[in-house]
């Protein structure tokens, strides 16, 4: 967990590991300064770029249907399409 002051960007809190002394979880590694996949939290950042590059509004329709992009056939986290 890392917490920044949104105005100054001061680091107000950071938890880098559950237990520094636990070797089983690599406790001495600060996970907040290590590389991790951001998962779905990357989406807003890419959406913002799409907003910059296209005339889209937040209410533009977009369809959540099964699709293939070449050989790539992504699923949703719940396996459903809405």
């Amino acid at each position, binding site marked *: 967990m890392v917490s920044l002051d949104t105005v100054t960007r001061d680091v107000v809190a950071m938890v880098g590991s559950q237990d520094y002394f636990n070797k089983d979880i690599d406790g001495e590694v600060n996970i907040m300064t290590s590389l991790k996949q951001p998962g779905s939290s990357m*989406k807003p950042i890419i959406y*913002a770029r*799409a907003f910059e590059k296209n005339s889209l509004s937040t209410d533009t329709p977009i369809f959540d*249907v099964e699709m293939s992009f070449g050989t790539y056939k*992504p699923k949703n986290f719940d396996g459903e399409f809405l």
Partner: protein
Amino acid sequence: MTVRTALDASRNIPAIKMYYMALEDSGNTGVQQEHNLVDYLQGLGLNSIEKREANNLYGPPIVLGSAEVRGIDFAAAYAAFANNGQLLPPNPILKLFDPEGNEIKIEPATPKQVVLPAAAYMITDILADNGARPAGWNNFLALVGGRKAAVKTGTSSKKV
């Protein structure tokens, strides 16, 4: 569904469509398109995302979070969205003193405009809209009592 609902409900297919819309115009090669996207991401301080060779591109899964980042960098990128798209590096040092106890002034960094203000506003507006999130999801916004706040979920590997 709308773009708003797609992001708040974190649907993957719309995200991949938005990835394609995030790429530069089709006059460029796929490699150049991705490198331009990487320029944007690096501009947001996500320096662990790099320009890769043609046979090793991130491709569409990058929008689902496949490219690794540091949590501290990512928090700073999100903070830029809360500030109309202006990035400041995270500041780990609040005050600095010399051995005699005199404060050494730290020159504050200058904010950089890394996302267009309109785009940053739209993202914040969507992520602050609890009404567009699926019923039954944790209402994280209730935790911040009255303050404007935005939230996005994301799942990494389970290591803590």
